[in-house]
């Protein structure tokens, strides 16, 4: 009955099948084969990534919950915990953008409230192909509408995010969603099943045939037939999830609950197995008791369905009525589908007859672990070579000769341009906690009743990682953490979403391993342990992989919410100070090289982690002492773009800046561009009231952070000189128009 073709359809190798037979001491039946296939899929088992993930730093005095649970948690004082995680929904979003993105939001929200936390903020990190392609616009429009449709309806604000457009994502967009919630530290709830005889409850939407093998789909490459997999994408119901959220939080107020887990990837299979495994217990359920949307569903289909908005609860024996009453109040039907056992088995029955029996251990701890072969990709040596003078010799567009034109081109690059078209579709103010609106740096939400606030940022630069995955991944951690520090918050913890190609290819596995090393190094140095996350592999279409893209979410704490710092200039006549090392003129891998010269080359900027840590500590101290009025990090597009962004949305306030000359190439044009648009790391532009300047410079010296007065705010033009020579002179209105309309203009609708 079980032949090679059936195994292939289940994404299992013959070695893996032999392993299954060995564990069971017999051939599995079809239901059991299905259960193994989803639990051993890359998506659920992390079989290729696990050996590398183990090297990440996950501990610290602030860490209340590290990886392994539904989400991580850090201590934020006042007896409270911030519970957060990031997760990908790349494959479903490519196949069906609206529902794929919507259910991605739904899934990560469940992971947070499952821990007993009230979700209070969402972020997202998106990657698409070039925006001028109609297919990209369709995908972007669908993904944004899906995120909005779900998040807005359930009433959790989307307070920030980031997006980039690169050809490598055209056939495989990335949709990474981050959610943060707040719980009482002493009341964090875990996904455990324990206590023999305790009841296993199913609550939420009915189980249908949707999403069967979603986890297996997310563990395969795409080809032209991928659209046929659309039925494997689920449909989201944010209203159902809102009811579940409120009802579950209410149930958690009682002590009748032992554990709870959402049914996400691999549905009922994964939740029963993982809960049993964590609690060192077994779980026995009868699939006939599971509420079903369609008739005639087989145990195989019920166990593998990925229908959305379903939760599995373990309730103390004798307390069932109490829990049922709460779900009744919310018009939800909670059904007892089984019980906890002591034998460590996942036992599936249908009307009392056993139809599947597998030791939990075989599905979790004993899942295969691969140490896949790695090899440095061949392309690397070529793309890391960068001859700047050759860029000009080969003939250039006029824009390369005119810094003003180059700045306008960068500001209009969709990766840099205003994202208002996107975030205006997200309710970013519901719950009345948002104190740093989107587009102004990190997302910041106050914690009502405490005076504190949490800042959060997601960042990642796939192009950097393509050129050097180790350095690129370090830079992603540094940037996310720096954005949090710019808001005045002390970075406390991180979560990662690792988006890569097919791990069975040595070059991809090498990228993955190097990126994880880079994340580990940066997280250790910056004191932000990884508390959880997600790995998304097989991001390839027709054999072409995405840029290796680790996305990092960092969460930080502001002791005083009202000392939050935004990225916009506030007052005319303020002094602009550049914090960070002298300009080195690094333009390898920059947005400038890509936009102006069409080149994706060179080494990404170097990163001195000690300097980075000192800079971030200084930013937090300056904010806490109320010494600065704004802080904006220099990343995509370098200082010139950073200062322009500081001027935008301020009613046209201008600035004057003088930068040191740099020596990056022989050609003067390149040197000017390197000073303006180079993306050297660990640099932040702050604006300071003139009276506070001395204090700021003193604090910087004491913190061993270089600080130089670079200019001042005022007027209605942006003027930047390099080495004393005028380089940029633009009306703010003109620059802001280029920046604010670059994405909108692709979506202009002629409507009355």
């Amino acid at each position, binding site marked *: 009955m079980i032949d090679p073709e059936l195994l292939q359809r289940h994404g299992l190798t013959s070695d893996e099948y032999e392993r299954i037979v060995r564990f069971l001491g017999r051939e599995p039946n079809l239901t059991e084969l299905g259960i193994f296939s989803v639990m051993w899929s890359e998506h659920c088992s992390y079989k290729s990534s696990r050996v590398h993930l183990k090297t990440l730093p996950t501990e610290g005095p602030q860490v209340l919950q590290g990886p392994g649970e539904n989400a991580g948690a850090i201590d934020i004082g006042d007896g409270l915990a911030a519970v957060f995680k990031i997760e990908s929904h790349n494959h479903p979003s490519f196949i069906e953008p609206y529902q794929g993105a919507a259910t991605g939001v739904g899934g990560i929200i469940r992971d947070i409230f499952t821990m007993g936390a009230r979700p209070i903020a969402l972020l997202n990190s998106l990657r698409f192909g070039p925006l001028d392609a109609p297919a990209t616009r369709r995908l972007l429009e669908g993904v944004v509408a899906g995120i*909005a449709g779900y998040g807005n309806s359930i009433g959790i604000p989307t307070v920030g995010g980031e997006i980039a457009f690169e050809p490598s994502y055209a056939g495989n967009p990335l949709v990474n969603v981050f959610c943060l919630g707040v719980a009482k530290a002493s009341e964090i709830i875990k996904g455990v099943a324990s206590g023999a005889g305790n009841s296993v409850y199913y609550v939420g939407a009915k189980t249908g045939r949707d999403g069967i093998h979603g986890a297996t789909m997310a563990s395969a490459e795409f080809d032209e037939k991928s659209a046929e997999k659309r039925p494997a994408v689920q449909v989201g119901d944010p209203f159902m999830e809102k009811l579940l959220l409120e009802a579950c939080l209410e149930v958690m107020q009682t002590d009748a609950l032992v554990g709870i887990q959402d049914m996400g990837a691999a549905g009922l299979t994964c939740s029963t197995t993982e809960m049993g495994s964590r609690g060192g217990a077994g779980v026995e359920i009868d699939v006939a008791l599971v509420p079903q949307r369609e008739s005639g569903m087989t145990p195989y289909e019920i166990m593998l369905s990925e229908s959305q908005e379903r939760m599995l609860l373990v309730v103390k024996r004798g307390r069932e009525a109490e829990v049922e009453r709460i779900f009744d109040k919310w018009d939800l039907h909670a059904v007892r589908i089984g019980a906890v056992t002591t034998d460590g088995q996942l036992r599936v029955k249908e009307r009392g007859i056993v139809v599947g029996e597998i030791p939990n251990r075989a599905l979790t701890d004993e899942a295969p672990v691969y140490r896949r072969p790695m090899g440095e990709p061949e392309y690397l040596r070529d793309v890391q070579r960068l001859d700047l003078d050759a860029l000009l010799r080969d003939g250039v567009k006029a824009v390369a000769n005119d810094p003003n034109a180059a700045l306008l081109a960068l500001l209009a690059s969709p990766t840099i341009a205003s994202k208002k078209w996107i975030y205006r579709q997200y*309710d970013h103010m*519901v719950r009345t906690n948002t104190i740093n609106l989107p587009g102004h740096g990190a997302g910041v939400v106050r914690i009502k009743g405490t005076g504190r606030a949490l800042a959060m940022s997601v960042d990642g630069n796939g192009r950097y990682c393509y050129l050097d995955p180790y350095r690129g991944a370090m830079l992603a951690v540094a940037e996310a953490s720096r954005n949090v520090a710019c808001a005045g918050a002390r970075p406390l913890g991180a979560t990662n979403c690792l988006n890569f190609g097919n791990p069975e290819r040595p070059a991809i596995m090498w990228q993955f391993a190097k990126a994880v090393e880079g994340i580990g190094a940066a997280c250790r140095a910056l004191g932000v342990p990884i508390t959880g996350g997600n790995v998304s592999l097989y991001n390839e279409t027709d054999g072409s992989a995405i840029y290796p893209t680790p996305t990092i979410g960092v969460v930080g704490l502001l002791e005083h919410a009202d000392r939050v710092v935004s990225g916009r200039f506030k007052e005319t006549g303020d002094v602009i100070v550049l914090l960070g090392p002298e300009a080195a003129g690094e333009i390898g891998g920059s947005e400038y090289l890509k936009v102006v010269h069409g080149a994706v080359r060179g080494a990404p900027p170097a990163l001195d982690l000690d300097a980075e840590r000192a800079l971030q500590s200084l930013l937090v101290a300056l904010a806490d002492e109320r010494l600065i009025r704004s802080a904006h990090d220099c990343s995509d597009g370098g200082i010139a773009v950073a200062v322009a962004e500081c001027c935008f949305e301020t009613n046209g306030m201008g600035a004057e800046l003088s930068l040191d000359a740099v020596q990056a190439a022989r050609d003067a044009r390149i040197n000017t561009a390197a000073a303006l648009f180079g993306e050297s790391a660990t640099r932040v532009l702050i604006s300071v009231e003139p009276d506070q300047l001395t204090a700021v410079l003193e604090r910087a010296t004491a913190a061993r952070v270089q600080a130089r007065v670079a200019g001042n705010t005022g007027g209605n033009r942006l003027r930047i000189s390099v080495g004393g020579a005028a380089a940029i002179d633009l009306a703010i209105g003109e620059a802001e128009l280029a920046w604010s309309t670059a994405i909108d203009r692709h979506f202009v609708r002629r409507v009355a």
Partner: protein
Amino acid sequence: MKFGVVVFPGSNCDEDAFHAAKDVFGQDAEYLWHKDTALKGADVVILPGGFAHGDYLRTGAMARFSPIMGAVRGFAERGGPVLGICNGFQILLEAGLLPGAMLRNRGLKYRCEHVHLRVEQTDTPFTAAAVAGQVLRIPIGHGEGNYFAPADMLEAIERNRQVVLRYTDPHGKVDEAWNPNGSINAVAGVCNEARNVVGMMPHPERACEALLGGVDGRAVFESVIKTFRLADLRRAQVPA
């Protein structure tokens, strides 16, 4: 005074309205569950924003049938002040407590941003502390806020001075470029003929604290608190 904040399944600005009433303005506040049939002595009722019952049908179409709505209707008919914010406004329209209907936004997309509103009428309990012509900067967040009324109804609403708030530019001038959703006559808020029931698409509860980037929404809460105090002074409380 006591605020009653109705909670429908799918309401998501209920806690925000409660927080504004209780923590920002120091008033009593209580949630009113949609299955309840009494208002628990509330002096003012707020129908908050959100997506009641998921709003998979027309917005507000199902919420109007909730048991609590009978009590809200009776309270309104006795002259009690009722404020519908966003989804609450949509529910009041569906319940027939306010005239008109909502269409999808002109741009067909959800919009969340600050808008400018001109106070048109100050003889309602929710605008009594404002000055006619005053411009308020308050956020919106909706996908169906495109107010519509047929010509004769619109004419009656205007004649009866039932348009309470209008979308304008920052200087209080009506300008289609500053109308975020295509509402007819730039209507952002209306009242009933008796003037005690008000619906508005913008969210005043999101603009009550400086930390959140604006305090213009305070005018709405201050108005109803002031109205209640005056009524209290006259010993003319609305019977519960």
